[in-house]
């Protein structure tokens, strides 16, 4: 019997060993993966008990944690909530965190490696662990101006950035919301608020339209085609392209027309300068045919299309469609069909042109500050890629200045400053048009890039809300 008893003991030991092995696997090897699981709200719940760092704009907190009387000890508060909602996102018990509150969570909660030293000091001093503060590149005056330039009730986004550094000076979208409504600790109330906010047309509290909405670019996409044309070497300032009022699209009954009331009709053939100036559709369609889908796609990718990146909030990948028929390629060349861009992506195209073809990585975070406000780290400008040659960029800049001086973007002109720009109107089936202005100034030494899109507007309103707004924003930045 004793031998069997010993064997039973061995079986018991084996079972305990298996359990110890499984525990080691879960608690040691898999612990990180489990902590990162989307269903795991523990870190969020634990963070709620911490004094989270602030999000700062020009030294002022736009999001901060203030002491509260409930079990979580701190309540997240958003100052100027609507103005910055799409940037900060919200920090919610029930629904997780979004935008900067999410991507900068480690820094804000104090878990980042950068804060190791502070944590050690806090450990020994017994002080409450406090997270780092995140200082943004945003200029509060420009942000406010951009906000004011989108009328309430109008859906649209404005991005203002420095082409040389990629620093974002303003990023505004309407409709906006009050993140305080979602940051409360009463889950029931928060869920009700979330439901109410979700029913606002054009608004999702989970998503920043300036970086995540994909909209049809219309004619501002012609900048990409023009860049591709110059880079290919097949086209230059002297190239003349046929400029029919309507271009036959092979294999279809339809044709691609030039804008009926525009100035395109003045010439039977157009060079690139004129085609951009009057935003003529038919020459660009033919350029795209000549270059081919691949060449246009590659140029778009050189500007950042097809790539998701982080600034540090997530930026959706802008799209240029593939395997196009000739009519679809013609439509795509003028930013219609399935071409979709984020407002930030169009700012990047202009920033690359402004910066001699070098695309800097867009950036929202200027610095991290320790709880004692000492700077822990500051961001450095980072080259994302070379989008085009400096020569091509300078040529394109010249033509864009002409667009503002003589063409469709005249309302953006500023006396004494050379402004480069391009307008666009994208037809969206089932609703009004998207009106665009993208551009930069001064043309010889660009300091500011502006990308404006107003969605679901008629042409007249759109024109009113884009180029003139760009002028005000550029003036405001240059007057600083």
């Amino acid at each position, binding site marked *: 019997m004793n031998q069997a*008893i010993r064997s*039973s*003991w061995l*079986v018991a030991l084996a*079972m305990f060993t298996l359990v110890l092995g499984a525990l080691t696997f879960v608690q040691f090897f898999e612990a990180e993966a489990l902590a990162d699981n989307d*269903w795991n709200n*523990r870190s969020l719940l634990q963070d709620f008990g911490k004094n989270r760092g602030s999000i700062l704009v020009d030294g002022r907190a736009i999001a901060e944690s203030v002491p509260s009387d409930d079990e979580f000890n701190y309540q997240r508060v958003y100052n100027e909530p609507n103005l910055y909602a799409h940037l900060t996102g919200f920090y919610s018990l029930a629904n997780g965190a979004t935008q900067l509150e999410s991507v900068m969570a480690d820094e804000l909660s104090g878990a980042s490696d950068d804060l190791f030293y502070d944590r050690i000091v806090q450990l020994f001093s017994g002080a409450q662990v406090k997270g780092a503060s995140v200082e943004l590149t945003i200029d509060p005056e420009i942000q406010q101006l951009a906000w004011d330039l989108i009328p309430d009730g109008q859906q649209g986004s404005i991005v203002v950035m420095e082409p040389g550094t990629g620093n974002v000076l303003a990023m505004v979208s309407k409709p906006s919301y009050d993140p305080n409504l979602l940051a409360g600790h009463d889950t029931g109330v928060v869920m009700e608020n979330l439901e109410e906010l979700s029913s606002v047309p054009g608004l999702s509290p989970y998503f920043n339209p300036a970086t995540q909405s994909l909209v049809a670019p219309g004619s501002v996409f012609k900048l990409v085609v023009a860049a591709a044309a110059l880079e290919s070497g097949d086209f230059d300032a002297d190239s003349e392209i046929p400029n029919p009022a309507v271009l036959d699209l092979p294999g279809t009954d339809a044709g691609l027309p030039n804008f009926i009331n525009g100035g395109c009709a003045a010439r039977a053939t157009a060079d690139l300068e004129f085609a951009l100036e009057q935003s003529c559709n038919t020459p660009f369609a033919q350029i795209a045919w000549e270059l081919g889908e691949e060449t246009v796609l590659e140029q778009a990718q050189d500007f950042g299309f097809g790539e998701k990146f982080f600034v540090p909030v997530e930026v959706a990948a802008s799209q240029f469609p593939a395997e196009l028929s000739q009519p679809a390629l013609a439509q795509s060349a003028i930013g219609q069909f399935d071409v979709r861009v984020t407002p930030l992506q169009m700012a990047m195209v202009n920033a690359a042109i402004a910066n001699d073809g070098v695309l800097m990585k867009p950036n929202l975070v200027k610095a991290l500050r320790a709880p004692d406000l000492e700077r822990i780290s500051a961001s450095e400008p980072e080259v994302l890629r070379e989008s085009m040659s400096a020569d091509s960029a300078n040529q394109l800049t010249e033509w864009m200045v002409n667009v503002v001086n003589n063409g469709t973007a005249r309302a953006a002109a500023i006396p004494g400053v050379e402004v480069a720009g391009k307008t666009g109107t994208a037809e969206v089936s089932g609703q009004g048009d998207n009106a665009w202005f993208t551009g930069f100034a001064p043309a010889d030494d660009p300091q500011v890039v502006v990308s404006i899109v107003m969605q679901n507007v008629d042409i007249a309103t759109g024109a009113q809300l884009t180029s003139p707004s760009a002028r005000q924003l550029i003036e405001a930045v240059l007057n600083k």
Partner: protein
Amino acid sequence: MSDVLTVSKSRRNVEALLLVIALGVAISANLIVGLDKENPLDSAFWTQSGILAALALAFHIVLRFRAKYADPVILPIVIALNGIGLAMIYRIDLANDTTVAESQFLWTSVAMAASIAVLLVFKDHRMLRRFTYISLIASAVLLLLPLSPLGLEINGARIWINVGFGTFQPGEIAKITLAIFFAGYLSTNRDLILLAGKKVGPLQLPRFKDLAPMVVAWLVSIGVLIFQRDLGSSVLFFGLFMVMIYVATSRISWVLIGLLMIAAGGFAAIQLFSHVSLRIDSWINAFDPDVFNRQAGSSFQVVQGLFGLANGGLFGTGLGEGRPDLVIYANSDMIIAALGEELGLIGLFGIIMLFVLLVSRGIRTALGTRDGFGKLLACGLSFTIALQCFVVMGGVTRLIPLTGLTTPFMSAGGSSLLANWIIVAILLLISESARRPAVTGPMKDSFPDRQDFRAGNLTSGSKEVSA
């Protein structure tokens, strides 16, 4: 079987010392848990600590008089486990605003009192052998009770009965009565079972009629699974039977037959009963969103438990610093997840080592005792503790499907505490006889082991009574 030497020393002073340490662990855990309260050293704390210490002391004193040579390690281990469990239940009470710890404390007192009573009533474990067949009947009654009008169905399992002031799981007690029956039956008939039967290759097959206990075991296990829908208890009962049959016969063939039978039964159960197949599915596909979000048989509980364990990591968050309250049944079925979260992998290693020691002491007792009945009973009960730990901890860590079982001595649950404390008393009784200086023969007031004498000439079993 006299090859295991036991030094005949009382070791009660060692026990006293270990008890002080165990009480220190238990009471400080309780104190740390309450630190966030306004007044952690309130009267409730002192009352509970005082009563726990008093009960431990009483137990110790009873052992000094009634079972002087009993194993000195078992009681301190169990006090430590029970105390840590109480602290964790209280900690989850504080988070959830419940009062489970109070009733758990009450049940601890009742269970310890019952355990002391067993020690006082039974001078020698061999007296339990008289109850071999009574135990069988008692087991049947206990197992059928939940199916009677008294029974309650909670979360799909019908294993509780209403006893007026609360609920009770008769199955926990049936664990003991079944162990007594099997120990009695097998120790009486083992020689007969062993000698008969054909030999096929290396396997000595049993005679068909000797399969009766196997069939009883199978019926009970499958019955519990089908009628009470309790996978955990079913596995536990079957493991108990298998180990006892194996120890009685030393024949792997019996275990293989048993495993084949249960495999067939289990396979049929998976096909026929959704509660079993859902458990399996939520084990394998725990991280499938459909499985996670569904209403019945969701993997939510086990996944939350894993999150808790992961949150604890190597060192744990510290008592009171984690969020074990996020896991459903954190104070009962999932208490291992709660302990793992706050005490970390290191803390759980410590707890599991306590269980390993406890089981090893029980097995040591089985090796050391001289009678077959005691060997079977001690080994069966010890192995049950190990198996129960494996089933519940393996379930929590997703090693095996999660089944609703308590962690012995730790989980909230009166019936489980009561049953396990009675097991402790029985193990102590057997260890007393194992470690007592061998001057006494069969006890006056117990049945002489006549069958063993008769068969003793043929097998090594003879030594257990002559030693």
